[in-house]
């Protein structure tokens, strides 16, 4: 993807991270997610252990009690009797949740006060100060003085449901007033426990309702009064007394899912306080932490540097949030609402996905449009519909691109198939990716069947052997560069195997392209030529050499000198002819190894080679020009070419004349530098007819003009061939009976 799109994606990532973070902070602070959090809280509580109920007993003023003891409110004598009865059971503490706020008959009140005093520790409720409708704070409503003074303590016992009507927490009143249950719980535990641990903890005020929704065990007040309750049931327990009869006490929904009386809720509260399982709501920093951390992990996990599937990251983050919330609540009694965190994840995940899609779509569109504009060797594929309209346009472009790609594949496959030479495309381990028709034909003649997709490059290449060494063609090739090998199937079938590395668009090595070119014919021709040259060099020269040896060793009286001379002459001429042929063949077919050579050096080599001939005719060869001129050439051939020209000059010049060789540098109009070697003789010259065909094979010197000579007629053909193959030029000026001037020009190496 382009840098611009990368940048765009990064910017959007940061924006989404920021926006989601702000959303999480807001949701954490303003409690929009309360409903979700509460539902989650309630379900989690039910997963926990059921509340242990051994420490608390409810004495319910229930419908049965009303039925047996008369209408509510009861005479305070009954209350006094009930307190006495309970006290007789030796409970740890009593919380008597009945208001005695109005003074009644003083004798009865005194009786009650006496019972209360006897039942200590006993705690009585009051009505806490609350803001009335008028907004003026009312005074707290306390029990009447005698009773108040008799009791161990006075506490409030109000119940505050949450906004959804469910009671989850104990009320914490402002001021020094204590909760009635906190007082009871404090009295119930051993004095060894520091008191502050048991006072209603302001932080941990969520009531640990046990799982199961089971109701608290209780006994009817009437049964207690009637003495029907065994004292063991009361002993060492905190006894809560309160009204649950129809119409007396309110009933509230609780997180357990069931509706409970106020007394039951209080029993849960006191149990939580005693067993120290009260739940503390987490503070703001922890809640923000839980809200933001998963969001950031998710965004990093999904970011431009992504390593994992998006869905997995998302599920992981959400799962961890839920797990942390559950663990905190059930193990550490800490309530961390997960709602904001889940909301943050739920918003960021699709948002980021959507933005990514949008950027990718845009990128793809730009790329496809660019591709559409690119020149193609294939006919353009017509676009279906307009490219202007958003996604539909992109789809149209993609359509065209895919169609083009398909066309291109066809095109490439077709062209490869139609290539005249057998061509294989192999991947790095040697799997045949493509093979054209010629390759199938070729390997069928070898007895191999090409199976596209099979790893058989090595097997196919083993059908031929390298010429010379007889080794198989190495695959994969050691060198990284394209390489060509000469291989043979048998004595008559030769091939050039070219291997070129095949690379992907990014330069990565992808495999090899292997091409077989049939060179059997040219090989056959070459061998024929080699045979002829071999015949000439060895088989024809050898007998001539033997003839000369015989003449050399034969005693003078056995062979007449004149005949001997004639035989020697013919033998030598045959040798020269053979040499001429060999040299011409070399000049024509040798693979030249070019080196830097100096024109003057070669000229002197040539002149020195011909010294016997020139001396024999007393011909002087003079050279002019001593400037160094380096040419790229095949030294032996160039020297021989110069020698052939000078040799001709000697051959066709009268005795005692001079041959002048001049070396000059010439710079042509196009700036190229040339080395010129001019060889001028004072010989017999040539006529027009001979001049026209002097470079032909077997063109011989003038019959009528000069002396009878013994050339093979191959010399100038050789010169011509060598000059042409050196990109040189040979020219000739001649005048019968005045002389000939040859000029050999070769490009100078700078």
């Amino acid at each position, binding site marked *: 993807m382009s840098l611009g799109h990368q940048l765009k994606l990064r910017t959007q990532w940061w924006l989404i991270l920021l926006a989601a973070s702000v959303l999480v902070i807001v949701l954490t602070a303003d409690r929009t997610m309360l409903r979700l959090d509460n539902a989650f809280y309630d379900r989690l509580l039910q997963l926990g252990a059921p509340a242990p109920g051994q420490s608390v007993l409810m004495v319910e003023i229930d419908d049965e009690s009303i039925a047996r003891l008369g209408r509510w409110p009861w005479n305070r004598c009954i209350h006094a009797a009930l307190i006495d009865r309970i006290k007789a059971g030796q409970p740890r503490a009593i919380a008597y949740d009945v208001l005695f706020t109005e003074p009644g008959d003083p004798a009865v009140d005194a009786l009650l006060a006496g019972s209360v005093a006897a039942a200590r520790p006993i705690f009585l409720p009051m009505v806490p100060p609350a803001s009335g409708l008028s907004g003026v704070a009312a005074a707290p409503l306390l029990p009447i003085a005698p009773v108040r003074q008799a009791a161990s303590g006075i506490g409030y016992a109000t119940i505050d449901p949450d906004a959804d009507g469910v009671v989850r927490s104990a009320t914490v009143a402002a001021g020094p007033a204590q909760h009635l249950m906190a007082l009871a719980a404090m009295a119930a535990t051993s004095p060894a426990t520091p008191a502050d641990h048991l006072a209603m903890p302001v932080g941990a005020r969520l009531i640990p309702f046990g799982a199961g929704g089971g109701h608290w065990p209780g006994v009817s007040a009437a049964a207690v009064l009637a003495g029907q309750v065994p004292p063991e049931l009361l002993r060492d327990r905190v006894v809560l007394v309160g009204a649950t009869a129809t119409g007396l006490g309110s009933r509230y929904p609780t997180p357990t899912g069931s509706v409970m009386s106020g007394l039951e809720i209080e029993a849960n509260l006191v149990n939580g306080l005693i067993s120290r399982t009260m739940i503390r709501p987490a503070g703001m920093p922890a809640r923000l932490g839980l809200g933001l951390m998963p969001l950031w992990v998710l965004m990093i996990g999904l970011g431009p540097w992504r390593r994992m599937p998006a869905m997995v990251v998302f599920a992981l983050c959400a799962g961890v949030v839920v797990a942390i919330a559950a663990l905190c609540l059930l193990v550490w009694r800490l309530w961390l609402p997960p709602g904001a965190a889940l909301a943050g994840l739920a918003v960021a995940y699709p948002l980021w996905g959507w933005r990514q899609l949008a950027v990718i779509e845009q990128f793809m569109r730009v790329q496809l449009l660019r591709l559409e504009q690119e020149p193609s060797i294939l006919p353009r594929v017509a676009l279906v519909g307009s490219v202007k309209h958003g996604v539909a346009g992109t789809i149209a472009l993609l359509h065209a691109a895919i169609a083009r790609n398909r066309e291109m594949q066809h095109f490439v496959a077709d062209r490869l198939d139609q290539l005249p030479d057998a061509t294989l495309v192999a991947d790095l381990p040697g799997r045949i990716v493509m093979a054209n028709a010629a390759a199938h034909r070729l390997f069928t003649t070898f007895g191999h069947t090409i199976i596209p997709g099979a790893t058989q490059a090595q097997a196919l290449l083993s059908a031929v052997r390298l010429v010379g060494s007889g080794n198989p063609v190495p695959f994969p090739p050691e060198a990284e560069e394209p390489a060509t090998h000469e291989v043979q199937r048998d004595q008559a079938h030769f091939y050039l195997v070219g291997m070129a590395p095949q690379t992907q668009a990014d330069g990565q090595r992808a495999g090899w392209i292997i091409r077989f070119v049939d060179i059997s014919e040219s090989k056959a021709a070459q061998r024929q030529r080699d045979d002829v040259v071999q015949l000439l060099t060895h088989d024809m020269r050898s007998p001539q*050499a*033997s003839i000369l040896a015989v003449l050399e060793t034969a005693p003078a009286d056995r062979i007449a000198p004149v005949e001997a001379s004639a035989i020697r002459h013919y033998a030598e001429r045959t040798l020269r002819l053979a040499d001429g042929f060999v040299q011409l063949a070399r000049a024509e077919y040798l693979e030249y*190894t070019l080196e*830097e050579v100096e024109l003057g050096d070669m000229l002197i*080599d040539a002149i020195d080679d011909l010294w016997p001939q020139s001396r024999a005719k007393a011909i002087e060869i003079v050279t002019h020009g001593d400037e160094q001129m380096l040419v790229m050439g095949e030294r032996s051939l160039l020297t021989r070419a110069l020698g052939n020209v000078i040799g001709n000059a000697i051959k066709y010049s009268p005795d005692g004349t001079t041959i002048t060789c001049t070396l000059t540098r010439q710079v042509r109009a196009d700036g190229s530098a040339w080395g010129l070697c001019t060889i001028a003789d004072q010989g017999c010259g040539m006529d027009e007819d001979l001049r026209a065909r002097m470079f032909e094979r077997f063109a011989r010197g003038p019959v009528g003009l000069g002396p009878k000579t013994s050339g093979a007629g191959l010399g100038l053909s050789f010169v011509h061939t060598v000059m042409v193959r050196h990109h040189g030029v040979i020219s000739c000026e001649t005048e019968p009976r005045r002389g000939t001037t040859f000029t050999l020009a070769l490009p100078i190496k700078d």
Partner: protein
Amino acid sequence: MRIAILEDDVALAGLVEMTLAEAGHSCEVFGDGQVLTRALHRTTYDLLILDWNVPGMTGLAIIEWTRGNLEVPPPALMLTSRSAEEDIVAGLSAGADDYVIKPVAPAVLKARVNALVRRAYPSTSPMVEQFGPYKFDTRADTVELEGQPVALTAKEFALALLLFRNMHRALSRAYIFEALWGRNPDLPTRTLDAHISNIRTKLNLRPGNGFKLVPIYAYGYRLEALAA
């Protein structure tokens, strides 16, 4: 010197034997390569003159065989009708010390054989060495032509002396390079050609003066003294 001649052509073998006998060598002629290798097991020759194509074993194979089987392989001279430069190079690279192309000129053969023998079995060099009109003083590094001193650089002097001491013998470029510049010199190949060109000019090593410097295709150089 004992010289073994491998040549299946009787006339040529006779010429070679006659020429070398004139020069005071004792020769033995073999017509078959296998026979020659058997003889080499039994006896020692100071020099081998080998034809390329002979029955039994080619000349090149014999050279290879001597390198692998004899403690001190004798120098070998190829005698061949193959005149193409490539063949000559192939022979020299295969280990032949020199070559002579048929038809054989007796003077050339004699000179080449003597050069090989001289190199293989050298006598101690005197301080002053005389080669025809050239007088080399190895102590002073000076050379005189007909009594006239010729100014040469140190390398040119060494090259000239090397060529004269190996008269009639093909010297490979690598051999000359190593003798003059030591192992693995990082020099352009033209350097040697330029030096050769210089001493040819300064010492007038031209046929007119009785000497000829012959470049050997893809191999090196040989200094030849022309028969007067």
